[in-house]
């Protein structure tokens, strides 16, 4: 087992694109770490550079205490699961799982015993003689995991491990993956573009954009206090409300609501609040934002209410089932204390949380 340390890492493609751009990252031993970002943000390239499949232009990668920057992928003691699983179609499940051991010259009986044991523990017993084409998507994914486990590396790399599964199976596989990682205790880095997956699985998340890390933190930190409007937009299954506002005399006013921002200079800002942290009241409240209900969308246990405020701004708010307001009713939205965030209008960086009366 080993931690990972990435220092000043840059990966440049032949066409000059800096997919990873001077990136520093430390991952603790045994941590389940997510690289999250939109497509093209460099997260997969970073993973591939750690694996050694891409050559780093600058910087270094350490696994444990070893500098592996110049090592071949096979010498880095990492195991990887590819997005398409990359199971060899001409080999059976057992042969696939035993392949890393075959390369190392382990005898056939010994490696097949290991493979049988590994597949058994990943609920694949009875499928050993099948070929990948005869397996379901979920089974293929577990075979790919079993192969990575059998390889016994110090670091497990997963490239979008759940994206090829259908929605229901994905939830099941997600739980399975988290359990497996806990049992193995192996340092794991996984790449995903699905923020829900990252929030659910990871101990820590790095949100990436344009080859750099925009925010690094626990799922809770990232969900509660996105460090920039980019991260705020990206995280959360219902998008965060982001509205333009102006600071004047240490307070920011918006659609009838007035919130204190002590010590902040006057000027334009962006206010952000998650729909989950807005409470709707039928009667006027102190410091509430007032508007009319435009749309009510049922999300199952809750509903997403779109409130239209003065100045043509819409706010989303989630309300528990049974308490949905009528369409066209006037409502008063109150943000929870500490959950109304103020971002700089130009850079999009988080400045502070506004004081809610």
């Amino acid at each position, binding site marked *: 087992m080993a931690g990972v340390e990435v220092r000043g890492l840059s990966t440049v493609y032949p066409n000059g694109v800096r997919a990873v751009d001077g990136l520093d990252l430390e991952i603790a031993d045994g941590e389940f770490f997510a690289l999250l970002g939109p497509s093209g943000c460099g997260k997969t390239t970073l993973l591939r550079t750690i*694996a*050694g*499949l891409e050559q780093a232009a600058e910087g270094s990668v350490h696994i444990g205490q070893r500098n592996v920057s110049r090592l*071949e*992928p*096979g*010498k880095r003691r*990492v*195991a*990887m699961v*590819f*997005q*398409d*699983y*990359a199971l*060899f*179609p*001409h080999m059976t499940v057992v042969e696939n799982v035993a*392949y*890393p051991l*075959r*390369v*190392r010259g382990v005898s056939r009986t010994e490696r097949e015993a290991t493979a049988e044991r590994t597949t058994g523990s990943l609920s694949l017993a009875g499928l050993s003689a099948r*070929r*990948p*084409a*005869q397996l379901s*998507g979920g089974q*293929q994914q577990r075979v790919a995991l079993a*192969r990575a486990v059998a*390889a016994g590396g110090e670091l497990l790399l997963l490239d979008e491990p759940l994206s*090829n599964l259908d929605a229901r199976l994905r939830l099941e596989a997600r739980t399975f993956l988290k359990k497996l990682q806990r049992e193995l205790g192996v340092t794991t880095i996984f790449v995903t573009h699905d923020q829900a997956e990252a929030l659910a699985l990871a101990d820590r998340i790095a949100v990436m954009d344009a080859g750099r890390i925009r925010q690094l933190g626990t799922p809770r930190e990232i969900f509660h206090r996105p460090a920039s409007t980019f991260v705020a937009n990206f995280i959360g299954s219902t998008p965060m409300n982001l509205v333009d506002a102006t600071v004047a005399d240490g307070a920011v006013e918006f659609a009838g609501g007035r919130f204190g921002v002590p010590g902040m200079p006057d000027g334009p800002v962006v206010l952000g609040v998650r729909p989950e942290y807005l409470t709707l009241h039928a009667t006027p409240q102190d410091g509430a934002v007032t508007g009319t209900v435009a749309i009510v969308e049922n999300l199952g246990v809750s509903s997403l209410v779109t409130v239209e405020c003065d100045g043509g701004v819409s706010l989303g708010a989630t309300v528990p089932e049974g308490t949905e307001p009528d369409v066209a009713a006037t409502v008063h939205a109150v943000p929870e204390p500490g959950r109304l965030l103020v971002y700089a209008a130009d850079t999009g960086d988080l400045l502070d949380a506004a004081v809610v009366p």
Partner: protein
Amino acid sequence: MTPAWILRRIGFYVLITVVMAFFAIPMLWLATAPFDSDPRLGLHWPDWSLAGVRATFGHPYALGSLANSLVLCTVTAALTCVMAALAAYALSRVRIPGRDALLYLLLLLSSVVTGTAAMVPIFILMTQLRLIDSQFGTALVLTGGLLPAAIFILKDFMDAVPRSYEESARVFGASPGQVLRHVVLPVARPGLATIVVWAFVNAWGNFLVPYLLLRRIEGQPAAVVMKTLQDEGGSANLTVIPVFSLLYSIPVVVLYLLVSRRYGFRFHGGIKS
């Protein structure tokens, strides 16, 4: 069911029958003439006899030429397959400027290499290399002619092998040779089987190259010896030709059946991606 419709159907079936007869009659000849006591060029009900078979097996060069053909074609098919596989893999994976232009140019020139136009220079080249009357030398020339098209076909198969397979094997520590042997070649196996059959059949039917490069009749393959099966007057030796033709056609059919059953174009399913 108007009369016009019926007439059209009748016309259609007559046409089909004529076309089928066109292809079937030579096959019927090949099936009956070898076992006829008096084989002629026309098709007739045979007078069953094994005289033709005995004559053919007693012929000084008939069986030897078939063995020569087998050696020549096996060497050619093996050389073509190995060299084309390596070249196609490299061309598929390495970025070379003008790679596609190179491939098309090779393909264009390949018809020249074993074509009639290049025979004189090839003959001179082989004479200087002292490879006249050598099975191996002849196989080399045949391979040279087949390679561009083989590389072209195999490159498509190599392109279809997902890179993640190779990368996966590399992460687990496989050397480039192991990646090729364990992953790429087995996955591209239908393509390799295609090339083996295609190269073998091409070499089996090639007349000009062995005719020019193999001067001794003991070394000549079946396609060349077939031409010598005539009497002094120049008319075909019809006691030997039918049986010889039948024997000549068997290996190609057997090879095709074997390869298509053993390495057949089996479907390797994947997953959506």
